[in-house]
């Protein structure tokens, strides 16, 4: 009896294993099947519109989507492929779009690459890590051969140096998403309340100008907070500092560890500078005077909620363009204005996400041909974003779209409307009704006109200091929210914070950044 049961066990186990293989193997079957099927219907059907050639190279695009993932989007794939077959017959490619939410996105890419499931194009979140693990292909040769149109449009919209920040060890690994990259620290304020204080917006040009207005606000509206965060635990003072002092953050726009001031060429610890100490002091002052909610460092309630409740005068956050006030007014029903409060300093970290080609791609050439279409074809871009015209979205005018009558983002059968930062070129995207197209063009102009760091194009390879960065991330999240929101007393916490950074190895990180920066400067002189 015992033996039989072991045998059953072994058999079942074997069956499971083989089943696993055939479903995830994916190396041959799908491809060969298609070639076979493609040979049969060679006879043309002339009146059936552009037929998608079955032997076209299929390019699988893992697309990040922030809306509900629709159950089925065959229609969208079919529409795009008919268009591609009709417009670019010589390219001989077809698209297989696959949407994933942000939670599972990177996991899905890893799984597909490990199991051999086809994936050609995706949007790496943190390109350097993907390069370090050999997950993406160098693109420079492919770009010259198959990517002339995409290169041209990116040079025009971002600048001729646009590809520099996606270069690692002499190879280009990504095609930047073509959109406005400048995020200017912007003061967003309640216009009616400001009018009641008697101050003019022209008199507010930096953080230091705000307390006088705040005092008046507190006096007039005791229930209203003069200031609250847009993002949890972040008063935005570090981006303001970076903009005001020409700080190149050396690719770290999350924790700002190891930065360069101006053209000094010296990597330093931002948190150990008098500038940081001063701003942390200002925030402590705001906290003690009650300008901000006491629980701002940890509270999940943010500026949007306070605005909605009519209990907030102002917030500061980074935005592209210059019309965010109008958008917030529309969504909150209040009279909100906006004003740039500090400049933006264009360094390598400003670069947007990029589209990359998977190192497991069967046909990198087809993948690049598809990138060329993705960035330059209005129909393909807008179909991926908004679905089928008339069914999933309707055009308001040349540049604007909206949901069909009675539908919204949750009820429409297909939409990836929040992926505008993932797919293609911003000026070819239809804009949400209400957004001014002028503002889109302004954003692209800012790309080219913004003050650039002399180290623009430097990228940092973190692989040698991963242990230090891991430890530093923890120190950062332990101290920074409390410091920048004023709930920690800087007299005590700031030295403690810097000591903890030293213990966690910030010096090693700075030294590594300096070495790489020196090498980059030497190579780019």
């Amino acid at each position, binding site marked *: *009896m*015992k033996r*039989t*049961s072991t045998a*059953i*066990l072994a058999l*079942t*186990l074997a069956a*499971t294993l083989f089943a696993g293989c055939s479903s995830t193997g994916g190396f041959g079957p799908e491809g060969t099947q298609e070639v076979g099927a493609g040979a049969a219907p060679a006879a043309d059907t002339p009146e059936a519109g552009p037929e998608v050639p079955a032997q076209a190279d299929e390019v699988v695009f893992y697309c990040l989507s922030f809306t509900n993932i629709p159950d089925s989007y065959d229609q969208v794939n079919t529409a795009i492929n008919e268009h591609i077959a009709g417009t670019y017959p010589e390219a001989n490619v077809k698209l297989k779009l696959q949407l994933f939410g942000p939670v599972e996105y*990177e996991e899905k890419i*890893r799984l597909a*690459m*490990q199991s051999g499931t086809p994936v050609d194009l995706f949007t790496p979140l*943190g390109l350097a*890590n993907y390069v370090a*693990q*050999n*997950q993406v292909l160098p693109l420079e040769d492919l770009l010259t051969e198959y990517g002339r149109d995409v290169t041209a449009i990116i040079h025009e919209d971002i600048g001729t140096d646009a590809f520099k920040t996606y270069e690692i060890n002499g190879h280009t690994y990504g095609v930047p998403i073509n959109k406005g990259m400048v995020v200017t620290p912007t003061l967003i304020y309640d216009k009616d309340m400001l009018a009641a204080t008697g101050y003019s917006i022209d008199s507010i040009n930096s953080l230091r100008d705000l307390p006088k207005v705040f005092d008046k606000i507190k006096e007039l509206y005791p229930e209203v907070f003069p200031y609250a965060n847009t993002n949890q*635990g972040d008063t935005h003072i570090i981006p303001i500092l970076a903009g005001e002092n020409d700080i190149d953050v050396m690719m770290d726009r*999350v924790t700002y560890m190891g930065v360069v001031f101006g053209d000094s060429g010296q990597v330093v610890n931002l948190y150990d500078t008098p500038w940081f100490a001063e701003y942390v002091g200002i925030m402590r002052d705001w906290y003690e005077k009650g300008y901000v*909610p*006491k*629980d701002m*460092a*940890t*509270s*999940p309630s943010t500026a949007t909620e306070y605005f909605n409740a009519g209990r907030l005068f102002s917030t500061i956050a980074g935005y592209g363009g210059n019309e965010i006030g109008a958008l917030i007014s529309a969504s909150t029903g209040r009279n909100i204005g906006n004003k740039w409060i500090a400049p933006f300093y264009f360094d390598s970290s400003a670069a947007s996400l990029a589209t990359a080609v998977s*190192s*497991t791609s069967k046909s990198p050439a087809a993948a690049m041909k598809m990138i060329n279409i993705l960035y330059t074809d209005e129909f393909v871009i807008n179909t991926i974003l908004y679905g089928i015209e008339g069914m999933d979205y309707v055009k308001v005018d040349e540049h604007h779209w909206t949901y069909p009558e009675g539908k919204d983002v949750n009820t429409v059968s297909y939409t990836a409307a929040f992926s505008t930062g993932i797919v293609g070129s911003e000026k070819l995207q239809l804009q949400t009704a209400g957004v001014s197209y002028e503002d889109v063009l302004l954003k692209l102009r800012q790309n080219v006109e913004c003050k650039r760091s002399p180290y623009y194009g430097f990228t940092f390879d973190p692989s040698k200091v*991963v*242990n*230090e*960065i*891991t*430890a530093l*991330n*923890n120190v950062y*999240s*332990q*101290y*920074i*929210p*409390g410091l920048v929101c004023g*709930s*920690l007393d800087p007299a005590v916490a700031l030295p403690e914070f810097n000591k903890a950074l030293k*213990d*966690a*190895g910030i010096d090693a990180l700075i030294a590594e950044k300096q070495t790489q920066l020196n090498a980059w400067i030497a190579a780019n002189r």
Partner: protein
Amino acid sequence: MPGVRKTGLKSHPRREHSGPFLLIALPGLLYLLVNNYIPMFGAFIAFKKLDYVQGLFKSPWTGFDNFKFLFQTKDAFVMVRNTLLYNLAFIALGTVCAVLIAVLMADVSRMPAARFFQAGLLLPNLVSMVIVSYLVYAFLAPETGLVNTEILPAFSMEPINWYSQAKYWPFILILTQMWKTAGYTSIVYIASIAGMDAGMYESARIDGAGKLRQIFAITLPLLKPTIIVMVLMSVGRIFASDFGLFYQVPMDSGALYDVTQTIDTYVYRGLMRFGNVGMSSAAGLFQSVVGFILVLGANSLVKRFSAGDSLF
């Protein structure tokens, strides 16, 4: 029939009859094998620097490099200390609470209200930690929480900014954990009390033993094996922590890290940005190996002091 039974009990009590039982266990065993044993094979990734082109097997070996980040800073001490101490507290207090609930429930179980109580005990365990964190927040929010707006003023005390005061959190976390898990853990004890021979209680009562006497002289000694098994099982998880409890409930507040940082939250915070498969495997392997050693150790201790009660 009686004869068969007799020999079955005397000579080889297990072998002859084990076949059908093994069949019943088959799905479970298969599940264990597929879900728990086969993946163990992947533990070698902890010693690799993963390269996606070369694949899992051909990626270069890196020795113990992937483990270094766990011990890089003095955080290592804090997180190991927190993980161990909290788990010890959970095991000790959790057992006491669960047994207490079970003993109390044993006398209620015949009343119609018992169903209501049992459901009530289970309910907290079904609530997701994210929701628990907001329940806690409803009590402790600095500006709007029940404690600061109603309870403390009633005793004319100053409001406390709970989410930036580390000293209160060991108690808050333990209390939350007990609220959530004690009822659920008590089920095993309730079941084994229900299985105890009612005759013993009857004769104890005839001999004049009171309720307390019955509990200490009958219930607790009979519960001992169950308690030991349950404790041993939780000792195996002593290096793991409930991520939700330590990350969500304190609202990821930096000021509280000294008392809320555990191995799991450290790994999460540190590796979020890298997606490094090798380092995360290293952390998981480390927790499992230490847990395994602790179970072996605890088991051999039990064996020494009370041979019949050990797990294996």
